[in-house]
């Protein structure tokens, strides 16, 4: 047994990982979700807003992190649309605009067809410069955004008529997979203007631990990795979707199935590796 473990071909480990993720997907296994405090905090921040309030949704991620952040984007947009908030989408990542298009297509146009572009939601598109962009739009939105992503001048967009800078937003929702992302939004927007701006965020697993020092003073709510997405999805669907929510709003909770099996596999692999190590150590000492 030990010799099998010692000589375990790494491709066999790959195969195990593939099966650990693939089988639960094929079986479509689902598990119950119990929302944690931080997911509840994100939900409560959005819940506290009034219809017509302005929310800036910064989509700073790309397809490489869509597995984690895509479901968050879907349920955050759904929640904001249910609350009848005015949505201002923007991106600091070049691929971010595609992520914005995805939620506009999959959430707003499918389930909220009454929402009017320019009155209820607007896509400001991408601007390069990361923190440089945040710095500018904090004091003057129009210097950088002459038109929206569709080429319409800002002063012809009703929901932007009286918006001069993003300090007028009632909440910033940052979805981030790295730099620039939530960290920059906290550093450059929220920290200097704590009385004007509030932020909640969703981020990848890699980023989540790095953002904890900002909680709760600078960042009241955070959805970390796919688990955070699943918890928030559960909260939003319980509150708004009724008995039979559309299947696409179960994406994060569905993905917790492969997550569980793969995590258990990881633990078993670590234990197996340690068994080999300590047995060999023992033999060596003898």
């Amino acid at each position: 047994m030990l010799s099998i473990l010692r000589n375990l071909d790494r491709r066999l480990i790959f195969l195990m990982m593939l099966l650990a993720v693939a089988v639960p997907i094929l079986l479509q296994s689902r598990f119950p979700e119990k929302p944690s405090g931080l997911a509840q905090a994100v939900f409560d921040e959005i819940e506290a807003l009034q219809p017509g309030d302005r929310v800036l949704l910064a989509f700073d991620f790309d397809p490489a992190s869509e597995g984690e952040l895509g479901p968050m984007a879907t349920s955050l947009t759904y929640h904001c649309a249910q609350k009848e908030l005015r949505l201002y989408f923007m991106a600091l990542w070049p691929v971010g605009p595609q992520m914005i298009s995805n939620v506009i297509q999959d959430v707003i146009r499918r389930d909220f067809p009454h929402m009017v572009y320019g009155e209820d939601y607007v896509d400001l598109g991408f601007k390069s410069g990361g923190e440089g962009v945040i710095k500018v739009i904090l004091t003057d939105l129009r210097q950088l955004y002459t038109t929206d992503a569709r080429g319409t001048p800002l002063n012809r967009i009703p929901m932007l008529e009286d918006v001069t800078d993003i300090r007028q937003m009632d909440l910033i929702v940052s979805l981030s997979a790295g730099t620039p992302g939530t960290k920059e939004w906290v550093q450059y927007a929220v920290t200097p203007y704590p009385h004007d701006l509030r932020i909640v965020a969703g981020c990848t697993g890699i980023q989540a631990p790095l953002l904890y020092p900002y909680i709760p003073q600078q960042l009241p709510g955070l959805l970390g990795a796919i688990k955070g997405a699943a918890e928030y999805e559960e909260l939003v669907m319980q509150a708004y979707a009724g008995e039979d929510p559309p299947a696409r709003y179960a994406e994060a909770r569905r993905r917790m199935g492969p997550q569980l099996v793969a995590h258990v596999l990881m633990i078993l692999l670590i234990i197996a590796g340690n068994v080999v190590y300590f047995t060999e150590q023992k033999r060596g000492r003898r």
Partner: protein
Amino acid sequence: MQRSTMLWTLVMVVAAAFLIGRTLQGEGGRGSAYVRVVPRAVDEDHPEGRWQGVERVDPAEYWRAQAADPAQTAVRWSPANTVGIWLAALFTLAVLSFLAGDNPVYKVAESILVGVSAAYWMVVGFWEVLVPNLLGKLMPGVIQAWALPGLEAEPDLSYLVPLTLGVLLLWRLAPRGAWIGRWPMAFIIGVFCGLRLVTYIHADFLSQIRNSIVPLVVMNERGFAFWDSVRNVLTVFGMLACLVYFFFSIEHRGAVGKCARAGIWVLMITFGAAFGYTVMGRIALLAIRLEFLFDDWLWLIDPNNRRVVDGATALLQSAGIL
């Protein structure tokens, strides 16, 4: 080694044959994509729109439309998108083939990715920033007539500065005089330093100290909150212990050494948690790719009910009419 490579290649070939066979058998249509024709620029003179665009739709929508009116053309099969799905599946498998070892198929996929992503960034930078924010500021009339009919701006010559710096930056590509590229690089570095100097002190130094000033004895409406107090004490002293460990100007011996060791433990717990979260993230990324293969390509699963149709449509479908 060669034998095992052969074995794995065989496994791959069998798997590929199975997948292709599985795809070709049965009700057909696997990996197919459908689009809906969308009228654009609709007005009184053009109720059908001046021209038409397309939108991806679920297969179920196509089947429903066909069941209602077999002659309809508003929702139709899309050869371009179907080829796209197959290509995406092949790209996914090509990248996964790296697990069996480096191979030409993976290298081709990697080379394509490098080329496509560099060009993607350039195109996005050009249309979303350079056209509206540089050219549109310098010669708004030209840009309005050409690409941004909605642009309303007066020429702003201050944008000659970023234009000049940009030209100097691109000079780095020239065989001679690349040193001139240091000027815009110096500007970029200077801006980074200017932005970060104050912000890091404000958000990551002073604010973190302020965030750490919390009551060590927490009282709530029910009196002394033991666990909240323990949490606060551990957070504050954990952070201080880590800082002691980072402080290398004094030798880590005696009480300082013990404190630094506690700091290492806190850091190890931090790294352990980071590892756990990293694993979680990576698995989620794998899950979405496998979902694509099983759902969009092979139609083995249908988690979003994209191919769920009513009984009558299903009947027509099984009879091979749709």
